[in-house]
């Protein structure tokens, strides 16, 4: 009980809400609480979760990143072209290449933000346009289908056939997602670097005076987010088995909404991996439930949006007015 209270209001409330929805759906449908449905929920949301934890780190450090989804598109295209040129490559090269390109793109954001003291929303909106525009320009919007086999083949980690003959399975993206979630938790909770990130997001001036290296903090936050975008890129290709340059365009705001729903604060210093995962799963389970209940797929988003608005209006998540750093200089 003590731990639950320490868990934080938002996480706790979200957990209750999620549990309530799960119970309700298990009672209302006989398909929700099946191994097949639950595993597919995980399979389908692994990419979102990988992005979410990456974005979480940026939010904790007091920034915001709009460019991560488009970054993933760039990563998968460049990686695909490169790997094909290399003659195929393998998983090892895939991970290294995607991780490096992603982190590199994140560092571009960090360099602009720190080097010229431009706020992150401006920089990432700009790089969003640059990344996407250049990608579409150079690729002319053409998709890549002839991917190396290792990349396009499904890697099944667990499978089970139930009595009625339905298959349920967990695939590689779930494992990668779990690793990313764990790594992020470890970074922000268990290492001194992660704690400095919190401090930086919480009170940048205080962190600077304490001797925290702000350039490294920005690089770590945006680099981490970029790295996660790289991982998400690799896994998304593994799921859809093609590289479509504009497939991920527009996903960033949904992920942002879910992460903020999970208690991360725009402005920095607040947010947990648990809340972040709960936020994404809350949206995912709601959507899944509506689907199972036979609600028209066109109504999903409307209900999700309404749920977010209601959640904001009732939870009194006092995020304060104004955006990051919006404090009049207390001289």
């Amino acid at each position: 009980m003590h731990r639950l209270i320490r868990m934080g209001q938002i996480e706790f409330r979200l957990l209750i809400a999620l549990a309530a929805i799960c119970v309700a759906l298990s009672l209302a449908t006989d398909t929700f609480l099946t191994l097949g449905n639950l595993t597919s929920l995980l399979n389908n949301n692994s990419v979102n979760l990988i992005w979410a934890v990456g974005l979480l780190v940026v939010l904790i450090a007091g920034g915001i990143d709009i460019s991560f989804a488009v970054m993933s598109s760039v990563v998968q295209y460049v990686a695909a072209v490169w790997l094909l040129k290399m003659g195929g490559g393998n998983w090892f090269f895939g991970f290294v290449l995607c991780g490096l390109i992603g982190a590199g793109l994140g560092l571009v954001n960090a360099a602009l933000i720190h080097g010229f003291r431009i706020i992150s929303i401006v920089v990432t909106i700009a790089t969003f346009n640059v990344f996407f525009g250049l990608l579409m320009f150079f690729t002319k919007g053409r998709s890549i289908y002839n991917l190396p086999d290792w990349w396009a083949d499904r890697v099944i980690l667990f499978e089970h056939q139930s009595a009625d003959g339905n298959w349920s399975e967990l695939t590689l993206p779930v494992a990668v997602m779990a690793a990313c979630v764990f790594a992020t938790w470890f970074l922000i909770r268990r290492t001194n670097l992660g704690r400095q990130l919190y401090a930086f997001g919480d009170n940048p001036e205080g962190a600077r005076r304490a001797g925290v290296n702000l350039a490294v903090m920005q690089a770590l936050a945006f680099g981490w987010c970029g790295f996660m975008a790289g991982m998400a890129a690799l896994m998304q290709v593994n799921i859809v088995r093609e590289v479509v340059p504009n497939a991920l365009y527009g996903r960033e705001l949904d992920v942002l909404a879910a992460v903020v729903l999970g208690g991360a604060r725009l402005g920095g210093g607040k947010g947990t991996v648990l809340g972040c995962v709960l936020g994404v799963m809350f949206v995912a389970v709601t959507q899944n439930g509506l689907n199972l209940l036979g609600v028209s797929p066109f109504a999903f988003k409307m209900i999700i949006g309404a749920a977010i608005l209601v959640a904001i209006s009732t939870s009194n998540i006092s995020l304060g007015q104004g955006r990051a750093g919006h404090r009049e200089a207390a001289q």
Partner: protein
Amino acid sequence: MTETGPSRYALRMKGIDIRFGGVQALSSVDFDVRAGEVHCLAGENGSGKSTLIKIVTGVYRPDNAALIELFENPVEAISPVQARARGVAVIWQDLALFPNMSVAENIAFDGLVGLRPRGVRYGDMKLRARAALERLGVTLDLDQPLENLAIAQRQIVAIARALIQDARLIFMDEPTASLTQSETDHLLNIVRKLSSDGVAVVFVSHRLAEVLEIAERVTVLRDGKLVGVYPTEGMTQARLGELMTGHILEYKVTARDMSAAPILFEARGLSVPGQFEGVDLTIRAGEVVGLVGLIGAGRTELAHAMMGMTGTAAGSMQLDGRPYRPRNIREAIAQGLAYVSEDRLQLGLLQKQSIEDNAAISVLDRLLGGLGLISPAKKTDLIMGWVSKLGIKIGLPADAISTLSGGNQQKVVLAKWLATEPKLLILDSPTVGVDVGARAGIFRIVRDLAERGLAILLISDEESEAIYNSDRVLHMARGRIAGAFDPRTTSPVDLEAAIHA
């Protein structure tokens, strides 16, 4: 007083020069602090106090320095990291803590700084934090986020944070600015304790009374130059004020008998649960009523209720003989009240906006020209009119308000409210952050306004300020009006005794 004897120095500096652009911020300043001493660094805003601290902590590098010694070891140039390693810590006025992190983590944070990746041992951190708090004789919930703590407790966290780094010389920048009297007393006790442990503490403070209470010696700076170093024994507030400003300030009682003037504002049995109760208050036209008391006694809360910012649970108010019950600040303004907030930086002014917009903000309705649009000419006329009436020194009306000095900013605040043509002006600590020299100018304006029939409620933390500028002084304690004083028959010392009784 100190076990180590007076010959050992925590810090010695001689001949410090530093220039910023065309301004000589410090010129051949000497400064020394003995080990275990409580020392006060006094001076008006801009006298070079902060610059001096920043040199000691390595934020600035002096252009010239004949000598800098830390704990009797000469140092060439100090970097922030070196200063900390050698046992120098600063507790800034804003504390530089992390509101969302736990108390333990705030105290032990400096152990986490650095780029070499390593694990965080929360248990160890808590142990060290607890030990530091024990040294101060304080217990706090270590797992709590700092934001749940009151300012006074946060200050203690900041001190514990300095101790955990083995600080032997601690600078405190305006540490009591936002503390109540009992919290201040507690803090002063902690400072004494540190001092007896051999930790030297340098106070930078505006509040002269507490400076004289705690410090052994006081170093006075004025315009970047050393005025002198004085023992506090035998020093008076008035003398210290003179040393800081460089001119003799005349204090004289200006109170008049206003009992014949018509009653303008009257409150009967006014109560807001948890803030104040049963407050009776009468203010007559042209009268200046001083309201003194400890921070937390309910004075600002009373002002907020009068302005309609909080609803009252019981009691009634009358303005000009008519029932007065404002539902929000706009109604209060419309009926003739004005409120100069104690927090000029955050609430009194919009620091990013221009001087003229800050002056016009409450009277937009009167600045309309054709078609109901705001007339820029009328806006400029408004501010220029007040600039000449109040003697405000400004550049251009379109310059940001933050370019003005504290005293001139406060005059713009007055102009803003006077433009609303109020009947009752509430001044909540109007001289906070205003130089001693500029305060007189503000009170001259207040006196003028009262002469012209404006009723004024002056909330003040300084007994002498209330005594010398009011016609009548009320004392508020624990949410009630505890007594009334006539400045003509009460000295500041009597009033101080009554407040701290």
